[in-house]
């Protein structure tokens, strides 16, 4: 990649070394533990689905039945029940939903159980590989039809059927990526609701049926528009790996999936999150999903000029956590945002410096660039200008995934016309200055080069500090986003389980083998 900022290669290498050292001890902890949602995700990969009359999902029913035995892996009892009852997966799910307890069954012949488990792994593997092949075929069929950067729109009505109309309209208007925002409470639910849903606040429940409905609607749009439309949801919160599992099965293309976001911004326990993010990322890696990381959130709580280095440092950490989970660079939609105070003199130059710096440091990553939100006001006319400047930076620096800024960001969830105007704005700016980026060089000693170097220097210094104290201690001390998270506090800690030596999870073993990770 052509470099315009002449950043120090030695410093970038040092940052990556530090990230590897910081992530390593966390990885050791992760590999020794499982969680209730990792077990439920495994069951979902095996086919566990459905819910009882009270709406409790079958994977939760199973994990509750196996309380105290999760250290051996929930799948063991599930395949045992399949073998013992002779039921199909669907048949067993129905029985469990009707009250059948699988915990009481004596364990059958180990070889038979393992053979049954391998059969389930093969079914899963065939389905997800089929999904990948379908996506790749469509991308090839409609090659060159997506915008660059890809234009990303959200829908958030709360009603999946209304979302479908909005998503199809967005596709028709030119969106490359459609994200269904989740209802605001879902990240803190320790289960994934079942079935199609029509009620939600600020978004729509992520359920497997909702995924299927939206995928099918967007597939129609893909062939109608002659352009692949990426479907996006949130593998985050307390059910991170389960949502990744559902996404793999229903061919989602992108997942919001950050290694630390839940700890900092949702007060989810750090042990729980670190274990959950690893398994979720392995599933995403295998399914060919592009993850989107949440660095933009640092800038909604902290100042975008002073704390720019925390964004870069987090990108290095997210990159490392992604690597060790088997994700390829093209799957790493590392995040950042256009959130500098618009009244600040030369703020735009700093935005340009930050975006170009991220582009040069992570040359293969489809960087996810977030629009202004914090300084958007009710002045929608000024908002259009802010978004136009954001669109300019994104195009000039070759960002990968471009979240469209809404002129009514500070007012309400977008109206159809807000999306349309956002798309028109982006298409205009990006077309009229299509090749401008290639014409730009930055002045030696000028504001932009100096700023990029300063942010890199600060990020390296910050990572040195984290390396000295360790990531978990650093989070306890509030080093990230000024938020302190004690390691034994936060939601979901009671769902953490130390794996027994005989822990049984052939899905995990299969994913590791496929992804070339050490077992």
């Amino acid at each position: 990649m052509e470099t315009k900022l002449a950043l120090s290669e030695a410093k970038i290498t040092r940052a990556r070394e530090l990230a590897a050292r910081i992530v390593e001890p966390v990885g050791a902890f992760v590999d020794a533990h499982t969680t209730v949602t990792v077990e439920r995700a495994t069951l979902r990969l095996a086919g566990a689905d459905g819910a009882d009359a009270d709406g409790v999902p079958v994977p939760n029913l199973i994990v509750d039945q196996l309380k105290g035995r999760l250290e051996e892996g929930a799948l063991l009892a599930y395949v045992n029940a399949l073998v013992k009852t002779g039921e199909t997966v669907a048949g067993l799910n129905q029985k469990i939903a009707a009250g059948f307890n699988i915990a009481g069954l004596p364990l059958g012949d180990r070889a038979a159980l393992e053979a049954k488990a391998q059969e389930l792994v093969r079914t899963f593997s065939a389905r997800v590989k089929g999904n990948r092949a379908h996506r790749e075929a469509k991308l090839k069929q409609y090659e060159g039809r997506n915008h660059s950067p890809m234009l990303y729109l959200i829908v958030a009505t709360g009603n999946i059927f209304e979302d479908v109309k909005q998503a199809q309209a967005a596709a028709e208007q030119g969106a490359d990526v459609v994200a269904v925002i989740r209802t605001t409470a879902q990240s803190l639910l320790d289960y994934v609701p079942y079935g199609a849903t029509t009620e939600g606040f600020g978004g729509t429940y992520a359920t497997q049926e909702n995924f299927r409905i939206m995928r099918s609607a967007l597939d129609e749009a893909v062939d109608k528009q002659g352009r692949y439309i990426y479907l996006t949801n949130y593998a985050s919160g307390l059910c991170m790996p389960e949502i990744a599992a559902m996404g793999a099965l229903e061919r989602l293309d992108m997942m919001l999936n950050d290694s630390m976001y839940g700890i900092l911004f949702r007060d989810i326990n750090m042990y729980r999150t670190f274990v959950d993010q690893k398994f979720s990322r392995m599933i995403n890696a295998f399914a060919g999903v592009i993850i989107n990381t949440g660095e933009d959130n640092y800038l909604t709580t902290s100042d975008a000029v002073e704390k720019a280095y925390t964004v870069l440092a987090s990108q290095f950490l997210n990159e490392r956590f992604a690597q060790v989970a088997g994700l390829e660079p093209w799957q790493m939609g590392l995040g950042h945002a256009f959130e500098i105070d618009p009244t600040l003199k030369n703020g735009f130059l700093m935005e340009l410096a930050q975006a170009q710096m991220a582009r040069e440091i992570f040359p293969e990553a489809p960087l996810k660039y977030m629009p202004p939100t914090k300084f958007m006001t009710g002045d929608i006319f000024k908002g259009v200008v802010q978004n136009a400047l954001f669109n300019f930076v994104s195009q000039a620096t070759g960002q990968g995934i471009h979240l469209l800024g809404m002129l009514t960001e500070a007012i309400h969830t977008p109206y159809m016309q807000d999306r349309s105007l956002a798309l028109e704005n982006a298409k205009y700016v990006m077309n009229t200055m299509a090749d401008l980026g290639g014409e730009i060089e930055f002045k030696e000693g000028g504001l932009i080069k100096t700023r990029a170097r300063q942010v890199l220097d600060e990020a390296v210094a910050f990572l040195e500090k984290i390396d000295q104290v360790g990531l978990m201690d650093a989070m306890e001390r509030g080093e990230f986003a000024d938020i302190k998270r004690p390691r034994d506090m936060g939601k979901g800690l009671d769902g953490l389980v130390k794996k027994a030596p005989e822990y049984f999870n052939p899905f995990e073993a299969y994913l590791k083998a496929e992804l070339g990770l050490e077992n």
Partner: protein
Amino acid sequence: MIVRPYGDTLDDGAVQLSFTLPVADGPKGREAARLFVEKLGFKHAEIVHSHAMAEGFSFYVAYGRTETSVDFDAIHIEEATGEKIYTMAESCEVIRERLGRKIVIVGACTGFDAHTVGIDAIMNMKGYNHHYGLERYQEIEAHNLGAQVPNDKLIDYAVKVNADAILVSQIVTQKDVHIQNMTEFIELLQARGLRERFIAVAGGTRIGNKLAVELGYDGGFGKGSYADHVATFIIDRLIERKHLA
């Protein structure tokens, strides 16, 4: 004084509008849009732009002139604060001189609402738009509990730190979820016999003083409010209470 919108001549009543119609773009759609604007009472309705957005949806920009007017002198506004807003330095000085002790303020974005942006703008050290937040005030002990805080937990915390005031932030307003949540907060305070103990303040982009007072709060702050406004309101109320006591 009678006032009307101003374009370029006094009393021309010029207004711009934009909206979507669930019909295809075209001459018929544009005429429907023009008739709609006329039906709103505008004269000289003109559709200056339209474009298709999606199958069966089109967008319009319109101008019109209105003869409708309002009597400016007959208007009484109900803002939580009056004309005088203390700066941070003035707030601290008034607290020292008139109250003689630090005041304690607890705030959170409550219920399932996950947006800290509002409460952070008011409370965080850094503040918002060059207005420092309450954490920066030397005479205020500010506790920002963040987002998704249940109403009863917020009240428990306020009791624990012996707060003078509680700030409730609500950003998500879809299907009026903020109204339910704000109402629940006041009902919980009342049920626990604590309503008079705290100054209860609500805030959020879609929340005004009028709504907040209707729901039983002492005051409410919407768009364009900073820590200065909230601090001024709380300080003046505390001084009032001190004199009444």
